[in-house]
């Protein structure tokens, strides 16, 4: 298994490092092993795409990185801190300060406008972008005062991206961000993620079922049955606009 790619020299501290990470869902009789020992390092500023069949443990892995879930065993390090030692309050602060999430179902607050959904995060962040700047980043500067119900799915997802990046997170964790979108709209969203990675240097982890998207990554990590089945490094990252499916 190849650990280091071109963009991830040994000199750089990884953003995440996991050590023999496992997750077991105990059921009566048959336990489900969602993760069976993951050792992985993710580096500053890279875009990583996670691929793999349904049920292979991608979301579980991402949720543990994001501090939404606890592993059954193993360790997760965020920079030099051990996430697995954090209590619930510490995890909340960790999410607040360092992590941006984008989900398949956009999870906007329906009672807040686009601008306010972003402001929700910037109000509690230490060094945020303005909501306006964040929305400009995803090309929604014209729709700032619309409520989610007045936006299309793609627009809602771009608001979700803007909301995630507005606090200048260290990491952007995206679980099937284009899953509910058509190709053109999905590309708009991916372009927004790519733009953020380029302009703010945000590390991005993207789960997808769409192998085409892998082309925009620095590294592509394949999951299978709770394990890492392989890691490939792209010499050249394709811009999001060049992708299609």
């Amino acid at each position, binding site marked *: 298994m190849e650990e280091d790619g071109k963009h991830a020299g040994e000199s750089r501290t990884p953003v995440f490092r996991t050590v023999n990470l496992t997750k077991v869902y105990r059921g009566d009789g048959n336990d489900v092993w969602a993760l069976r020992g993951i050792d992985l390092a993710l580096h500053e500023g890279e875009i990583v795409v996670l691929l793999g069949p349904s049920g292979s443990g991608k979301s579980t892995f991402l949720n543990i990185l994001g501090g*939404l879930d606890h592993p059954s065993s193993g360790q997760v390090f965020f920079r030099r801190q051990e996430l697995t030692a954090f209590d619930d309050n510490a995890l909340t602060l960790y999410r607040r*300060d360092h992590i941006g999430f984008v989900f398949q179902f956009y999870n906007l*607050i*329906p009672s807040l406008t686009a601008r306010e959904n972003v402001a*929700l995060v910037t109000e509690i962040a230490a060094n945020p972008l303005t909501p306006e700047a964040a929305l400009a980043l995803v090309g929604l500067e014209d729709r700032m005062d619309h409520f989610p119900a007045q936006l299309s799915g793609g627009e809602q997802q771009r608001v979700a991206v803007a909301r995630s990046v507005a606090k200048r997170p260290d990491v952007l964790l995206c679980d099937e961000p284009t899953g509910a979108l058509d190709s053109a709209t999905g590309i708009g969203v991916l372009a927004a993620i790519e733009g953020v990675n380029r302009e703010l240097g945000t590390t991005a982890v993207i789960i997808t079922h769409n192998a085409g998207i892998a082309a925009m990554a620095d590294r592509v990590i394949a999951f299978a049955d709770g394990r890492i089945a392989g890691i490939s490094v792209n010499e050249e990252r394709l811009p999001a606009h060049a992708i299609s499916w």
Partner: protein
Amino acid sequence: MTSLNKKLFRDLWHIRGQALAIAVVIAGGIATLVMALSAVDSLQETRRAFNEQYRFAHVFAHAKRAPNWVAKEIAAIPGVQRAEGRIAQDIIIDVANMPEPARGRVVSREAEGQSRLNDIVIRRGRDLRRAHPNEVLVNEAFAQAHGLQLGDIIHGNFNQHRRGLRIVGVALSPEFVYAIGPGDVVPDSRHFGVLWMSREALEAAYDLKGAFNNLTLTLSRAGSLADVIVQVDRLLAPYGGIGAYGRADQLSDAFVTSEMEQLEHLAVVIPPVFLVIAAFLFNVVIARIIQADREQIGLLKAFGYSYIDVGWLYLKLVLLITALGIFIGWSTGAWMGYAVTGLYRDFFRFPFLHFQVDSSTLAISACVGIFSAVIGTLSIVRRAVAIAPAVAMTPPMPSAYQASIIENLGLAQFLSQPARMIVRYIFRWPLRAMLTITGIAFSVAILVMSLFFFDAVGKMMEVHFFETERQDMSLTFVELRTDALRYNIDDLPGVLLVETFRIARAKLRLGHREERVAIRGLDADMELSRLVDINDRVVTPPPEGIILSSTLAKLLAAREGDIVTVSALEGRRRVRQLPVVRIIRQYIGLGAYMDRRALNRLMGEGDIISGAHLSTDRRIEPALYSALKGVPALLGLAVRRAALKTFSDMIEQHLHTMIFFYLTFAALIAVGVIYNSARISLSERARELASLRVLGFTRREVGAILAGELALLTFVALPLGCLAGYGLADLLVKLFDTKLYRLPLYIADATYGYAVLMVIAATIGSAWLVLRRVAALDLIAVMKTRE
């Protein structure tokens, strides 16, 4: 079990907390209904049986001295079934171990059970025996209050002769179920006793051989009360008759009636409040379930389930919860009814008191419970039935929100994003917010209303004992005495101030309305017993005209300046036209007042008094009491301190139980409404709140959004609830307005304070229950599914 029924029970289990809260609110309504109706039924049935078995009279009349043949004439009046003359007299009783004299009512009894009307139940001992003139039966309450044993001797002043009486029995009578002394506010069994003595002994004592001074009669089935009263009055007038009256004016029976009316009013006022709130809770809870089930409903229809299958599914859910509520309501209602009936057993003196819950009571209460549940949910279930199968296939849109009016007023800049979420959520579902506010307001209102009873009774007491009847003691005399007597009383030990008064019976008539009253004649400069008008100003009777209490004025439809016809029932029985010069505030009884001299002129018997109010020196009261026991003319004595004590004892025992029930109910409503409203907003917003947690908001911050919403709704509801409480109190004041007493519409500030604090406590408690769930929000599960 079919899969649909499995779903039904899983749904029910899922909302068990809310279902229980609703069931409890329904139970509150049903329980009040069952409690009130069963207590009324029990009292009514008990009274009916007692009155019938012991031949309680229908008409009562008092005269000075009527020959026995007049009773026979009265018995011959058409419509009269049976009439009996007897001797009844107020007396002073001297009981060993009690320094102050007690008042009593002595009633003649034909020896060895010959009396046919107003018979008695002998609880202990035996009946009177012929040729034992000093034997006496006493009423049970008095015997118990003094620990009197058979064979004990008590003393009475008969026509100015002191006489020892041997107790041979303890008895109860339908006439004295509520044994209240004349002029008393509540029964004081220590200071008021009923004695039964042989007719011969009393004839001798009061010089009434071959005559009677009291007459009672029963009506035949066809007899008309009004016609018979007119005839009796005509026949007794020459013998000093002061006007016959029916059971409605018989003090004891009227009190029992008024108590039953109170219970009936409660049954009318309280349950609807509960049931309206239950209907509202059903409405919001079922609406939420159906909203969450939209796609499932669409699917079921796509599978081929009919509209009726779907509608019935949700209706069954409602009916199951209602059934639980009815069951809880029935059992607690029966238990409460039993407790309340037990109170009445101590309060009223019935020889038996059978508690019963009619099946009709149960049926009625179940019907109103089901009715309110169905009313609350019908429109919602219809909406569910109307959901098209295609709904299952289309993803839901995010709820459409708008900027609320608050923000359009330019206040937005002051609101943080979470504050905006609260405000917009409330304005997104204005009807639901209003219903929640209404529910919370109702619980405040019920609290205010129940605590209002204390305030009102306290105020009544204050006005009666501290503003108007301020005398330490009131004396009444055997005979109408000239004013000279006043100077003898002055000489008694410890008497600081004496004010005399006269009482004379009369009929007041205005238009076709007529009331029998005791007019009190007062001197101009009374310090002790005063009249106070509606504006708290002290009123003195002018030399001409009559002053009426507001209730009497209302009964006569009289206003200041009207001329009433006063027909004296004593003295020369003159008839005069008098102007109503003032209407005064009075919460107890029907008062009519005149200048004493004017009253004496009207009666035409010279300068006469019938009693005196005293201010006394407490330190030498014992000396005064023993001196009073030796005053032969003394007929009655009321001690203010004792009256105050019995009054507060009664509140203690009687009111507390009822108020405990109300307070529990109010708390149940508050918790039911607030808990449900918080649960619904939690379930509707679980996703939103979980999103916030994912974004890095702490539990506390997320909880604050829910709590803030509750706080805001509660905050708006509190003043409304206080207003509604005032409204309910006003309604009760109107309903409880009887001839005997009425409640002042007075609510202390502290009452509002307590009500508000208790509802805030309920809000905090329910919020705590719900906020615990915020901690348990499953962040991953919420993120992984679409709404």
